[in-house]
């Protein structure tokens, strides 16, 4: 039982971080109908921004996180303006290809600036682990989880309760009608990319504090697909539930099945088994809009 609870708790904690990555996908998809394949690389860049602020400028973590957020927000808006705006009205598949191209460019640029070397953040969080009964969670997982959760909550509330959020939801619902209602949909697109880059950067930073960073960190982005699909491509609560579900599933599979197999590795595979199952049963995810399946 203790083993189960331990696996469950670390699964939830990991899943919260997955959920934040998924939110980055969801924001762009909601606004523009595009799956942003450069999300992982935006995470990676965000992590490097914070890392550089901490090591080169000796900034405290909170400031470094802020630097990453501002820089990523600017980068997101810039990418939208320079690369994606001219493609407005093109077929979704062309734009998706462009995001794949962007991911390669980001990776290459990161390699040029920071080299391919693997780096670790300096120690950041207090060492004391979180003890809940028999469950012990290391602080280097609990803090990132808390940051991720706070970020998701902020984005979710912003979407629901602010005028800008309402404009973004309206644009997601019906672009034409939003345009006719006087909503500046170009600004909504720009804000969406900006916000998605910000959430990706925060996710990148917290992932980086756990496992270190390198230009390859973005590979995690694609591993988040089961989360995004399970939750539904256009739902923020879905991203949260999907993230935690996949986190728990992964951890349970790793905890119970990996020891039984010679090579292990079930943990990495299980989310994708789940992905295939979801696509067969409920292609629009748990919380997604039904018509999403057209992609």
């Amino acid at each position: 039982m203790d083993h189960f609870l331990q696996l469950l708790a670390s699964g939830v904690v990991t899943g919260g971080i997955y959920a934040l990555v998924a939110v980055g996908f969801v924001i762009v998809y909601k606004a523009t109908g595009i799956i942003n394949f450069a999300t992982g690389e935006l995470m990676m860049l965000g992590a490097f921004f914070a890392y550089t602020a901490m090591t080169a400028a000796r900034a405290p973590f909170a400031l470094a996180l802020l630097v990453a957020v501002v820089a990523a927000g600017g980068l997101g808006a810039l990418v939208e303006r320079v690369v994606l705006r001219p493609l407005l009205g093109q077929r979704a598949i062309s734009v998706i290809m462009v995001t794949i191209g962007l991911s390669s460019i980001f990776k290459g640029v990161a390699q040029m600036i920071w080299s391919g070397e693997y780096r670790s953040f300096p120690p950041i969080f207090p060492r004391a682990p979180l003890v809940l009964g028999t469950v012990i969670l290391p602080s280097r997982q609990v803090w990132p989880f808390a940051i991720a959760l706070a970020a998701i909550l902020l984005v979710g509330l912003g979407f629901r309760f602010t005028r800008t959020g309402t404009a973004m939801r309206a644009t997601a619902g019906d672009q034409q009608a939003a345009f006719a209602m006087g909503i500046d949909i170009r600004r909504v697109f720009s804000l969406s990319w900006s916000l998605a880059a910000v959430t990706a950067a925060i996710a990148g930073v917290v992932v980086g504090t756990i496992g270190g960073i390198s230009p390859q960190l973005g590979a995690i982005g694609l591993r988040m697909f089961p989360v995004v699909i399970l939750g539904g491509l256009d739902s923020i609560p879905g991203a949260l539930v999907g993230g935690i579900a996949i986190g728990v599933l992964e951890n349970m599979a790793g905890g119970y099945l990996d020891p039984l197999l010679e090579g292990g590795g079930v943990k990495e595979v299980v989310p994708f088994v789940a992905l295939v199952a979801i696509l067969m049963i409920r292609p629009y995810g748990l919380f997604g809009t039904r018509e999403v399946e057209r992609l």
Partner: protein
Amino acid sequence: MAEGPAAPTDDRAILAVERLSLSFGGLAALAAVDLRVRAGSITGIIGPNGAGKTSLLNCISGFYRPDRGRVLLDGEDVTRLPADRRAALGIARTFQSVSLFEGMTVLDNVKLGAHVRQRSGVVSSMLRLPWASREELALREEVEREVFDFLEMEHLRRRTVGSLSYGLQKRVDLARALAMRPRVLLLDEPVAGMNEEETEDMARFILDVQEERGITIVLIEHDMGVVMDLCDRVVALSFGEKLAEGTPGEIQKDPEVIRAYLGEAA
């Protein structure tokens, strides 16, 4: 009823379209169409399918940019403005196929229409929470009074739009446009697909909007009964060209119009 010294023969046009041309890959959707819409009137645009009615409406609301010609709102050239800016200037529209924000309630949909008139910045609106916002409350009250009571839909407030009948969805679409407090309201087939009772309700609301609010209306409609009953002026289009213009009675007797319609039927 002429008013204003500058227009002895023609009443003030709140909306004017001058020599408007639009083509899609060589196919002319509109060919030098002229239109003057008198303030406070209801103008009907009729014509067979593919005559360019919706293209004309899209050029007026800013969804299409014409190849040539101008669109003037109260004398001001808006031809180069995008749709959101024209909405802010007072052009509202509804859609032929209902285009509501699916997951939201009726109230949220209608309030979105009213948002166009709020002029607070992005950041301040981002930081403003609903319970803190006086502007939001005032807006809510105004929408209740001016739109929900007016269109007899108080009972629908909390419903999500997806759960409404087609006729009611069209009414919400009208409500949302009305919440924008437009100067000109463009209606793209407001009674299409409605049953007789829904059609009568909608026709009555359209007349109320014109008479009680003084809003100028331009509508596209295939239901000739509705067009003849509601409109002060009717414009008939065919293959992107203006075939005829006049009172409903004149249009009904116009040989060109009759030929266009019969020609299509034959």
